[in-house]
């Protein structure tokens, strides 16, 4: 049985919307960060689905790239979060509105 591509896309859209909503609503930086990861993976899912559909490998290669960048981003982002927490003693994004530490 072949799952139609629309299913993948709908799932991906749902995941992406959840990511956006969480990004906008949540205040904890870690959660915001996780919602970004969620949006990236929603897009990854679309890539993979289309790659499978069209029998083209380039979509899957894109996914690898996204995952690499996401890993790097996670490393840097978590470091920034730790630095913020050390100076501000908070992870509430609304409290972090100055452009300097």
């Amino acid at each position, binding site marked *: 049985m072949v799952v139609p591509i629309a299913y993948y896309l709908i799932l991906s859209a749902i995941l992406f919307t959840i990511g*956006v909503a969480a*990004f*906008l609503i949540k*205040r904890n930086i870690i959660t*915001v960060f996780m919602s970004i990861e969620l949006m990236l993976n929603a897009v990854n899912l679309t890539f993979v689905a289309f790659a499978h559909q069209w029998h083209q490998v380039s979509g899957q290669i894109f996914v690898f790239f996204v995952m690499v960048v996401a890993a790097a981003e996670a490393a840097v982002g978590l470091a920034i979060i730790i630095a913020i927490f050390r100076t501000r003693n908070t992870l509430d*994004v*609304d409290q972090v*509105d*100055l*452009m300097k530490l």
Partner: protein
Amino acid sequence: MNGNSSIDLHLWLIPLIPFVGFLLNGLIGRKLPRAAVSAIALIATAIPFALAANAWLQFKSLSLPYVERLATPWIATSVFHADFALSLDQLTIIMVLIVTGVGFLIHLYSVGYMAHEEGFYRFFAYLNLFMFFMLTLVLSENFLLLFVGWEGVGLASYLLIGFYYQKDSAANAGKKAFIVNRIGDFGFLLAMFLLIQHFGTLSFNEVFSQIAQHPEWHGGFLTAIALLLVVGATGKSAQIPLYVWLPDAMEGPTPVSALIHAATMVTAGIYLVVRSHVLFDRAPIALGVVAVIGAATAFFAATIGIVQTDIKRVLAYSTISQLGYMFMACGAAAYSAAIFHLLTHAFFKALLFLAAGSVIHAVSGEQDMRQMGGLRKFTPVTFWTMTAGVLAIAGLPPFAGFFSKDEILAEVYRSPYLGHALWFVGVFTAFLTSFYMFRLWYMTFFGAYRGGKAHASHGSSHDHGHSSHAPHESPWVMLTPLVLLAVLSLVGGWVGVPAALGGHDEFGRFLEPVVKEQSLSYEQANVDLARNGTAQTPAVPEAAPDYPTERLLSGLSVFAGLLGLFFADLFYRRKPELPAKLGEKIRTIRGLVEHKYWVDEVYGALIVKPVLFISKYALWILFDRGLIDGGGAGISGLNIGLGSLVRRIQSGNIRSYAGWLAFGAAALLLITYFGLGTHFLIH
């Protein structure tokens, strides 16, 4: 530079050497001893005099006008061009000799006169600067370079009037002279614009030969140019209505009054009129205006001179009056008579001022003649030299003033427009002149010495550091120029003894090539004449010499001079109580004259006050502060306001950024999906 003949006169050195003197004294003079400063200033004036004398000696072998010009043009545009060009002709050589000769004597005198003053080097630097500009003025070959000199002498005059800059009155007098002269310069500038428009050049030679080529040009724009030049000349030469600065200019040191405000600079207006007489010859209206202005000024200033008590102010009004004579002569197209009087006036008026300076020196800075008297015994040399000057200006033969004034009066009498009326004004003014000069003479040198009581309160008026009590004669460095000028005041007139009195009028003949109507020395004019076969000079037949009338006229003017002497003798020697009594009887007239006809006050109310009012309220408060400052503040305020609005976007709040980001992405999606009327962007 290269001359147009085999002889190289190095004209350009004549103005430049005083400029070097100015630079030396101005830049390092403060550190030099006074002797060195004097030496620099004197040498920087003596060399130009020597060069001018050299030019004079070689004069016969020159092809005139002798022109030296810098190879590269000064200003070159499509409309006109101007060169650094100097020219020498009969008129110029006379002016240069006057300026350098009298100038040198006055420099020499100043060495003694200014010996105790602060800013010795500054004074001589300014004097040399003045010489530079004055010589540029008289030597220049075009209106523009003349204008440079014209403005420059105004600057030097300003600096020297305000020499005692710590005195408010001196600083104000300097400003007044400068501003009043600006009004005249405005006219001069407009005249130059018109010249450029109509002739495409400012060179004297080219303008005048163009006029000579067009005998049909008459009046019209030539009158306009001439009248505008007259405006300039009235400013520089202190004629009605712009004469008001000259009496105040007496705030400057006395040698300055002698050099700038009597002998040389103030005659620049006369020089300008005579130099551009070709224009004036075609503009009879302008000539009439010049004559009337001159006669009115001569009379008007003489009446004021009668009641002045400050010795220098008497001489200042007398200068205005004598300049009026020269203007009158110009107006009667008697240019050589005007220049002749300019020459003799330079001698005797410089002498009178320097003698007055010597008197002021003698009485430790007092300038009020009522505090003088009896100085004949104390200062014999000054007395005798001043006597020569007084006799010369009073027009008594055989002194210089007699011949020049007589020539002016005779020429004015002959002139067709208003001739007799102007002549009468001239003779009456001669009477007044003689009267106030002998009044000065009697008040200063005769009777008992009235000063010496209130020195402490008066000593500051001239900042002379003397504290001696009895009047004393001046040093010889001051008296030598006096004696030389006295001799010149005696013999200076003999170069122009008119034919009616048995002379040959060498002066008039010498100047004739320059000042005769429609100067034919330019080859174009000759060509024109040859082509038409008839003379183009307007048909003013040379009046048949009328010697008896001329002799009668000079007899009358001498009589006027003697009458002045008689009245002055009566009022100020024999019956000294008479002036006061008479003054009581005509109190209104006396008040009017003593207040100089309220001219300064009228100008103040009519011109100065409104200008200040407009400047303050319309220009300063409304325009400058309101429009300009307000405009600037408005624009900056607008930016600040807009900025404070837009700044809110950049709050630093991550979630607000995220919101904007999401909103933007959604908007883009919507636009790509629904189009929203943007399909044309894609196609």
